[in-house]
C-alpha cells in the first residue's frame, strides 16, 4: 500500500488515484501550468485539501487539490532518510564516558507527523553529530529512552539512576545524560538525591536550540559535559549549559539548585542562591569551586526509589481550599506548596493543609519568590502553618522540594524519618548563608 503519511480527505484520494507515494516525483497540472516536485509528507494537523511538493529548487509549496486537473508520477523516488557517517576513532588514553540519551534536542530530526522537532532514535546520531567528542573522551553513547522531557516521570529517574550505578560498576570515568531542557532541573535534583556519594561526575546536558539547526547550543554543551565527566577532579550531579549567549563558556550548576529561568535563551539555566560549581571554556575547565566533593570518594549506595503521589502546588490569591482537599482525595502522600513571600497561603488553605497532615500526609512549604528563604515564624500565617504541621524548607527551590519529597517518601518507612530527611541538607539543596547583591 502506498505510504501517504499525514494526507487525509480530498488530498489523500487525489494521491491514491495517482498511485503516488511519499518521495515520488509528481507532475501536477494546475490551472496556470505544470508543477513538478517531490511529494513530501503532510503534517498531521494540516488540512485535507492540499498536497505538498518539494520543488527542484528545494522549496515546499502547497497546492489545492481541487484546482489540480491531473497528476502523474514521473519517477519513483527515494523515501527521505538520514545518512549518518561513522564517528572517528577516539585517540588513545582518554577517559571513558557513558552518554545516556533520554530524548531532548541534543540530536534531533524533523518529525513529519507534526512538522516539529523530535529526538533522534539511533545512538550513532549522537556521536556522529559531534565528532569532536573523540578528542575528549572514549564515549559510549546509549539511548535509555526517548521522550520529550515533559513526559518524564519518577520511574524514568529511577531508570537513569540505576544505569549510572551500573556505569560506575563498569568503570566509567564519568556519565553524561542528554535530556530535554524543560524538566532537566527536576531530573538533576532527582539524581542528586538518588546518587548521593556518587564517585564520578554525572553531568546533565541539553539544548535550547534544536540540533537540526547549525546554531544549536547542544554540541558545545555536550562537549563540555563530556570533558567535565571524563576529566574533572570533582564528583556529583551537575547541569552543564551555556553561560551567556556566546559559545565560549559552559556553566556547571549544582543539581539541586538549578532552575530553567527562560523559555528559549541559551543561558536559561541559572544557579539560584549559590555560586556556579564550575565553568568550562574551549580548552577545558576555567574555574572550579573549591567546595565540591572530590572524585572517587568511598561510600556510594544509591537509593533509586521515588514515590509518585506527591503534588506541587503554587498558591495564588483565591485558590480554593477545596483544591487541596481534592488533591488529598487522590491519595496524595506528600504536598509541596509554593507559598507567597516568606511561605504564606490563605486561611482556608492553611486549614485544609492541616487536615491533610492530620490524615498522615507530608506537607512542606517553599516560596514562589524563588529567591530567599521561607520563615514561618515571622507572621501569624506562618505560625498557623507551623502549628498545622507544615514543614518549612528554608531556601529550597519548589521544584527541588517536590523531587526531594518524592525521594524521601520512597526511601523512608516512617513519617518521622521522612521529616528528618526533609530538613537535613543532603545534597546541597539548601544553603545556610545568603548575601546582598546576588542576582535575583
Amino acid at each position, binding site marked *: 500500500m502506498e505510504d501517504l503519511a499525514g494526507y487525509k480527505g480530498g488530498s489523500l484520494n487525489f494521491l491514491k488515484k495517482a498511485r503516488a507515494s511519499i518521495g515520488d516525483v509528481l507532475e501536477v497540472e*494546475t490551472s*496556470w*501550468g505544470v*508543477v513538478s516536485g*517531490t511529494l*513530501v509528507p503532510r*503534517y498531521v494537523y*494540516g*488540512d485535507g485539501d*492540499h498536497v*505538498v511538493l*518539494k*520543488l*527542484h*529548487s*528545494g*522549496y*515546499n*509549496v*502547497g*497546492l*489545492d487539490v481541487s*484546482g489540480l486537473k491531473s497528476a502523474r508520477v514521473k519517477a519513483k523516488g*527515494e523515501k*527521505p*532518510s*538520514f*545518512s549518518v557517517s561513522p564517528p572517528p576513532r577516539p585517540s588513545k588514553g582518554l577517559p571513558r564516558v557513558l552518554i545516556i540519551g533520554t530524548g531532548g534536542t541534543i540530536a534531533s*530530526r*524533523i*518529525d513529519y507527523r507534526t*512538522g*516539529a*522537532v523530535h529526538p533522534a532514535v539511533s545512538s550513532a546520531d549522537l556521536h556522529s553529530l559531534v565528532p569532536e567528542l573523540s578528542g575528549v573522551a572514549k564515549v559510549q553513547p546509549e539511548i535509555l529512552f526517548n521522550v520529550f522531557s515533559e513526559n518524564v516521570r519518577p520511574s524514568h529517574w529511577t531508570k537513569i539512576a540505576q544505569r549510572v550505578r551500573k556505569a560506575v560498576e563498569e568503570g566509567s570515568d564519568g556519565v553524561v545524560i542528554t535530556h530535554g531542557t524543560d524538566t532537566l532541573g527536576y531530573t538533576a535534583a532527582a539524581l542528586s538525591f538518588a546518587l548521593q556519594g556518587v564517585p564520578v561526575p554525572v553531568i546533565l546536558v541539553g539544548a*535550547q*536550540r534544536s540540533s*537540526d*539547526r*547549525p*546554531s*544549536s547550543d547542544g*554540541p558545545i554543551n555536550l562537549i563540555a559535559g563530556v570533558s567535565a565527566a571524563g576529566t574533572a577532579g570533582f564528583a556529583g550531579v551537575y547541569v552543564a549549559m551555556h553561560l*551567556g*549567549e*556566546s*559559545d*565560549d563558556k559552559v556553566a556547571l550548576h549544582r543539581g539541586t539548585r538549578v532552575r530553567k529561568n527562560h*523559555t*528559549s*535563551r*541559551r543561558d536559561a539555566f541559572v544557579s539560584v542562591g549559590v555560586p556556579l560549581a564550575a565553568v568550562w571554556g574551549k580548552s577545558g575547565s576555567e574555574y572550579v569551586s573549591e567546595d565540591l566533593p572530590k572524585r572517587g570518594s568511598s561510600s556510594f549506595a544509591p537509593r533509586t526509589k521515588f514515590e509518585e503521589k506527591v503534588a506541587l502546588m503554587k498558591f495564588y490569591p483565591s485558590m480554593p481550599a477545596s483544591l487541596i482537599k481534592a488533591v488529598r482525595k487522590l491519595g496524595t502522600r506528600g504536598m509541596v506548596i509554593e507559598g507567597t513571600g516568606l511561605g504564606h497561603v490563605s486561611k482556608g488553605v492553611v486549614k485544609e493543609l492541616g487536615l491533610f497532615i492530620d490524615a498522615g500526609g507530608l506537607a512542606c512549604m517553599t516560596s514562589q519568590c524563588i529567591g530567599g528563604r521561607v520563615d514561618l515564624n515571622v507572621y501569624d500565617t506562618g505560625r498557623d502553618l507551623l502549628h498545622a504541621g507544615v514543614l518549612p524548607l528554608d531556601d529550597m527551590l519548589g521544584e527541588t522540594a517536590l523531587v526531594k519529597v518524592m525521594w524521601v517518601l520512597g526511601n523512608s518507612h516512617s513519617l518521622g524519618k521522612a521529616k528528618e530527611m526533609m530538613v537535613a541538607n543532603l545534597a546541597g539543596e539548601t544553603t545556610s548563608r545568603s548575601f546582598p547583591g546576588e542576582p535575583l
Partner: protein
Amino acid sequence: MTSQLAADGIRVGLEVHQQLASTAKLFCSCPVIKSEEFPYHFERKLRPAQSELGGTDPAALFEFSKAKSNLYLWNPESSCLVEADEEPPHPLNGEGLESAMLAAKTLGSNLVDEVHVMRKIVIDGSNTSGFQRTAVVGLGGSFRVDGTQVGVQSVTLEEDAARILGEDESSRRFALDRLGVALVEVALDPVPGDPEFVAKVALHLGRALRSTGRVARGLGTIRQDLNVSLMGGKVVEVKGVQKLNLLPKVVEYEKKRQLGLIRISEKLGERGVRRIKCRARNVTKVMGGTASKVARRELVDGGKVVAVVAPGLGGLIGWEPYPDVRLGKEVAEVARANSLGGIIHSDEFRRQGLSEAEEARLRAELQSEVADAIILVAGRPPMVDRCVPLLIARLEEAVSGVPAETRAATEAGETRYMRPRPGSQRMYPETDIPDITITASRRAELAGKVPEDWQAKVARLQREYSLSEDLAIKIYDSDLSVEFEDLSRELNVEPSVVASVLVDLPSRLAREGVPESALGLEVLSEVLRAVGSGRTAKEAVPDILKAAGSRGLSVSEAINALGVQLAGESQVRGVVDSVLQKHRHVIEEKGDASFSLLMGEVMKELRGKADGAVVSKILRERLTELTGKKAT
C-alpha cells in the same frame, strides 16, 4: 560544444532581491533601522546540518571547513532575541506576505495555495541560526519587455541577512540590524544574454516592484544576482550587482570568462587530455632556499608549501584565450577565497623568481615532466591543507570547461570566485511557523490592491500633464509622482517646469557642486510655490537653488540675497503709469506702435525684476485705455 557558439549561446537568469518597506521585520516586531552603534556583541560558530531528503550539502561543508567564528554586534533599537537566535520566530508578518503577493501579481506570477516557510541552510555566518527563513509565494507566470516574453520562475518572501562589517583570518564580524528585514526575491527564467536587454529587463523589474508602493528605496535596498550559463552548460551564479549600469558589464565579463574556459577545455581535448588526475606533495623542505620572495615570506611565518601537480596542464595555466582570462586566475581566486594570498604556477615560475635550476629540482622531487603544470600553494598549514583539495577539484574540472560556482560581482563590473554552488538539498521546513493557506477571500482582497501598471502610469502622466516620455519616466522613477501631481494641480506653474525642478535640476546642480541632500522635496516645493505666486520668475530657479543649497539659505533668503524677487502687480502698475506719463508725447505720436519702446522702458526701470508676461499684460491694458481714449 565549441566556443564557436558565440554570443547567442549565453543565457542569463536574473534574480533580484528587493527590500520591502515595512514597519517591522518579517519574524519579529523590531523596527527596520540601520544602526550606527553596537553596544553589545556575542560570538558563535555554526555547524553543517542534514536536509530532509538525506545527504549533506557541499557548500555547507565548504563553509564549515573554513571554520571561522562569527562575532555578532547588536543594538536593542534594531534587533531582539529572535535575531540573536535566542527565541523562536514570531508569526510571519502579514504586511510582508501581502507585499510579496502583490509583487507576484504585478509580475503576472501565480500565487501558491499554501505558503510553506523553509529553512535555507547558510553557514557563512550571515544568519545567526545557520539558515535563512524563506517561502515561495508565486510560481510561474510572465511579463513582456520590449515585446519579448520574460518568464517568472518564482517570487519568494524571505528575511535579509546580517550585514558583514569585516573579516580576518579567524573570525567574521556582523551587524544584526539588517537581519530579519523582509525581502522579496524574484527569480526570472533565463533570457538571451544580450547585455542591453538584460539591463532593460532589470529596469522593468525594478519599476514593476516599485509600482506596488511596498518596496524600500535608497542605496542597497535592491540587489541583483545573475545566473549565467552557456546553452546547456553549468550555471554560474553571480551575486551582488548593486548598480543597474553594471549589469551589461558583468554579463560581458562572464561571457568572456566562460567562453575562455571552454576554449581551454578544447585545447586540452586537442592535447588528448580527457581526464586530469592531480597529486599533491609537501615541498616545504625543497623550497627552503627559494629565491621567490612570495614563497619565502610564507615560509618564514612557519608556513608550509604544497605543490600540486596537474598532468596535461603545462602551459595552459597562464595561457589567455581572451584578455585577462586564465585558468591560473581562476585557481588563484579559489585560493584567495580560502584566506590564502594566491598561488604560484609553473607557467610563471621565472617571473615569480624561481630559477630554472630550482624548477628542475622541484620537478625531479615531484617526478613531474614539463607537460605537467605545477601549482605551489604557500601559507599557514591549516589553511593550505584545507585549500589543496579545493584547488585540485578546480584544476581537474578544467576539462569540462565552466564549473558551477557562486561568484561575486565587483564594483568594476567583473566577477570573482566566492564559493562552490550549493545544491538544492539545503532546504527543509521551518517547523516553528505554521503553513499559511491563501484562501479565496484573501485572493479577492488582494485583487483590489494590485497597483496601476507602471507603463500605464507613465503614459498617463505624459498625457495628463503634457510631459515628454523622458520626463514622465523620470517622475515615475523618482517616486515623487504623487507630489508632482499635487504641485501641478495646486500651483500656477507649468507641469513640465514642476517636473524638471523636481527631477532634473537637483542632479544638474549636483554636477556644479550643490549637494543633492540640501535640495530636498521641501526646498523644491518652496521655490515652485514662489514661482507660482509670482514672487520670482522660473528663470531664477537654478540660481535660487544653488544659493539655497550651497550657502545654506532658505528659499526666501536666497531670493532676497540674489535680488530676484519680482515686482508685485501694484508696483508694476505704478511703474507702468509713471513711464506712460513720461513718454506721453511718444504715445500721442505713435499710439500702439510705441508698445515695444515702452515695454523696454518699463523693464529697464523694474531692472528686469518682473514677470515679462505680467508687465506686458498691464502695459497693453493701460496703453489701450490711453490710446482708446485718444481715439475717440
